[in-house]
């Protein structure tokens, strides 16, 4: 997995997305540009409904874009001639509400990617899956179904299911949203541990500013809809980080700085929402 650190640079160039439900144009993303380096942990924060997920969906190939282009390691994912990027195992998504297949055991969930891609035989993939789950501390529950384990375990398993494919980019859409702060902190350390090992590029959407600064190399604050980059906060806290980082002065100052930018947008989003309702 060592070679991954040199892969996974994302270029988002002048991307615009206009939705057209019921004949009314809604601009979700407006001329947004962002360069994410290979092996970077890029955290995206912004008001609800600002278009963060739209951007993730465009990278993953779930939605098309209206203008602009997105490149992965210099290769075009989507652009004017090809608005929808192809979905592929080089960009694996970890979903907001979790998307482990409930009808497959954890081992079968993790082994799924390599089997369907034809890179491994069934038993080889299962062995590898069992090994990776054990590394993530999930060795005992490999034969259980997702419905039988806690949400924290399920989320870790989902990240293992993504990583077995050696993706260039991990796309995470508020994966720890519904978790209590204790579980969250354990999940953060587990993710950082994975990152330190694989150096996979991470595109991480969140509402939680502390989470954003604790995990990220950069925190990108988006404007209220249509989304543009409002501010980029560089997080120069050295890695490896642990829970003690959370109480450092440096950390606190970065949270303050980000909070100011986000708060401004949150007020705008709130006022816009009020106007729409009025």
């Amino acid at each position, binding site marked *: 997995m060592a070679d991954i650190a040199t892969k996974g640079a994302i270029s988002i160039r002048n991307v615009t997305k206009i939705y057209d439900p019921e004949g009314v144009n809604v601009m979700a993303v407006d001329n947004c540009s962002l360069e994410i380096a290979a092996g970077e942990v890029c955290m995206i924060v912004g008001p609800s409904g600002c278009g963060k997920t739209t951007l993730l969906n465009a990278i993953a190939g779930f939605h098309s874009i209206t203008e602009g282009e997105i490149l992965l390691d210099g290769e075009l994912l989507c652009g004017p001639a090809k608005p929808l990027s192809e979905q592929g195992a080089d960009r694996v998504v970890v*979903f907001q*509400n979790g*998307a482990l*297949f409930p009808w497959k055991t954890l081992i079968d969930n993790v082994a799924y*990617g390599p089997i*369907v891609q034809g890179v491994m035989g069934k038993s080889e993939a299962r062995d590898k899956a069992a090994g990776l789950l054990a590394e993530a501390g999930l060795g005992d529950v490999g034969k259980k179904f997702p*419905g039988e384990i806690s949400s924290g375990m399920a989320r870790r398993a989902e990240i293992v299911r993504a990583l077995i494919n050696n993706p260039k980019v991990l796309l995470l859409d508020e994966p720890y949203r519904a978790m209590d702060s204790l579980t969250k902190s354990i999940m953060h350390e587990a993710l950082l541990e994975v990152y330190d090992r694989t150096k996979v590029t991470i595109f991480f959407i969140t509402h939680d500013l502390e989470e954003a600064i604790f995990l990220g190399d950069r925190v990108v604050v988006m404007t209220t809809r249509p989304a543009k980059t409002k501010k980029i906060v560089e997080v120069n806290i050295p890695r490896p980080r642990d829970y003690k980082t959370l109480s450092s002065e440096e950390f606190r100052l970065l949270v303050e700085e980000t909070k100011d930018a986000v708060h401004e947008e949150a007020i705008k989003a709130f006022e816009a929402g009020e106007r729409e309702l009025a």
Partner: protein
Amino acid sequence: MAEQKSQPKLQQAPTGLALIFYKWKVSLKTPTPYLMAFGIALWIGTYYLLVEGWKLPRFNKLPGPVEVITEWLSRDPDWGISLYTPEYYDHIIVSCRRILIAFTIATGLGVPLGLFMGWSKTFRDYAFPLLETLRPIPILAWVPLAILMFSGLETPVIYLATLASLFVTILNTLLGVDSIDESYFRAANCLGSKPRHVFWHVVVPGSLPFVFTGLQISIGVAWFSLVAAEMVSGQFGLGYMIVDSYMNITYVTMVIGMLTLGFVGWISSVLVRMVGNRMMQWRVRAMALEGR
């Protein structure tokens, strides 16, 4: 260390017969079996009082529970049919055989059709309007057509039962595919699936809960329409037995036929549910953890 040793060990989870026995033992500690027994006793008691006890008008013409059970268990039944006469089993076997054939055809056609309709929008656009036009036609309205189309007595009866359960199965399977969360399709796609993988690993297992709900309804509908068909055209079967005893004023046999039908129908439903639970262990286990 000594303290650790004294801690109780986690027991091995029971399986197979031991599991059934364990579940049965646990259920005896809940009110469920007693309430079930009470419900049945209440029904029989009311039936007895209305018909044989108080002999209320309108009810006094019906055979009461004592009369029915005596006849049912009689080695020498007054009206010709009881647990000890081979004719009784002939009727049951004929009906069960018809249901088995009809249900197998309806499931074999209905599940794949429903899956494809749910999976392929193009196929749904072709087939859905037709399904929705044919589905509301009551099964009894198909009887003359079935008799015209098929020769003999057996095929029309099976055809009618098949048709009724086919519609239920298709519609429920289709709804089952619709019910699958979009994120599973997305997850499968971004893990590198080809369309056939999505079909076998997401569409099929994801729709199973609805499919089996549909199959339970469908087997009920199959019994319903089978009996209707046997009443109209048939020489054997529980439906025929009921209508024949009515014609011959052997009302006791008629009630025996009805109760038998209820019992056999219930068993067939339980069998479908058991197969469903066997195929959806993931769901059974998750629901067990929620105490359901």
